[in-house]
């Protein structure tokens, strides 16, 4: 009897809930992050390396001679590419921590978390964390002109936060007031405006810049849907164990 009491005291509801969130988020973030890193390596990294040839001046757009659009940028750089894998996994562990925490709150309020609607959670996460800021600050190819990085980061965090609140309102407060507030929150950062450069100085061809933004967003969409599904899967799995 004494033993039972001790165990109960050790695993308080708050500890159990926190452990469940962190455990499922780490599993989801690490596994999804690994897949996402492979997608980025295959589809985004070659475009980035191509752009860097112009950023560093190895290739010059509108220079004396025409430049071939096909450049060899293949090759595995162990330090650089493995660090990218590591940081992708860490980044998506961070996102998973936020997503699973919100799933936990939603579940306490009566929402069902399943593998299928986990993908919708991921889609909402993509809209909040990737698409909403990209509407005014598109994914940047190296070498583009941009405003002060600190100002852009403030704007990025504010935009992601307001878009995330908007997604929550659309999902869980589907009323005229909720939808109205969501629309205002989604539009506001773009009406205020993102910090933009005073002049354009980017040496990279627009074709590469456009392909990079398009690839980064598309891989981001796939990434978030995978992350949402994995978060829901590990969250419900950890719930069964508890």
């Amino acid at each position, binding site marked *: 009897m004494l033993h039972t009491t001790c165990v109960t005291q050790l695993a308080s509801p708050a500890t159990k809930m926190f452990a469940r969130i962190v455990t499922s988020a780490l599993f989801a973030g690490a596994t999804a992050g690994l897949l996402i890193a492979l997608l980025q390596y295959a589809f985004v990294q070659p475009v980035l390396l191509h752009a860097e040839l112009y950023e560093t001046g190895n290739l010059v757009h509108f220079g004396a001679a025409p430049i071939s659009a096909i450049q060899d940028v293949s090759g595995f750089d162990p330090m650089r590419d493995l660090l990218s894998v590591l940081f992708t996994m860490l*980044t998506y562990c961070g996102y998973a921590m936020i997503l699973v925490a919100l799933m936990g709150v939603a579940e306490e309020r009566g929402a069902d978390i399943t593998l299928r609607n986990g993908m919708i959670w991921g889609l909402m996460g993509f809209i909040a964390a990737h698409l909403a800021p990209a509407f005014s600050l598109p994914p940047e190819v190296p070498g583009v002109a941009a405003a002060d990085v600190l100002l852009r980061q403030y704007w990025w965090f504010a935009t992601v936060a307001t878009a995330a609140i908007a997604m929550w309102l659309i999902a869980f407060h589907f009323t005229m007031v909720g939808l109205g507030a969501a629309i205002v929150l989604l539009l506001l950062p773009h009406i205020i405006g993102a910090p933009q450069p005073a002049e354009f100085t980017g040496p990279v061809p627009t074709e590469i810049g456009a392909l990079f933004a398009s690839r980064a967003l598309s891989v981001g969409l796939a990434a978030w849907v995978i992350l949402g599904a994995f978060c829901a899967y590990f969250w419900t799995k950890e719930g069964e164990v508890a």
Partner: protein
Amino acid sequence: MKTTAATMTLEDQASASRTGLASAFFALILGVGIIAVTGHVQAAALHDAAHDVRHATGFPCH
């Protein structure tokens, strides 16, 4: 007696919900902290190591 039991249950539920919210809040702060470190802190070593990921993930990088 029955009323007391019912009240206790409601209180327990409210308390459980509060602890759940607190746990979720701390996990959320931890998540934002991780994103800030991997995606936003401008320290040179971190920036260089995370450079490609920051561009590919759409974070403001330079």
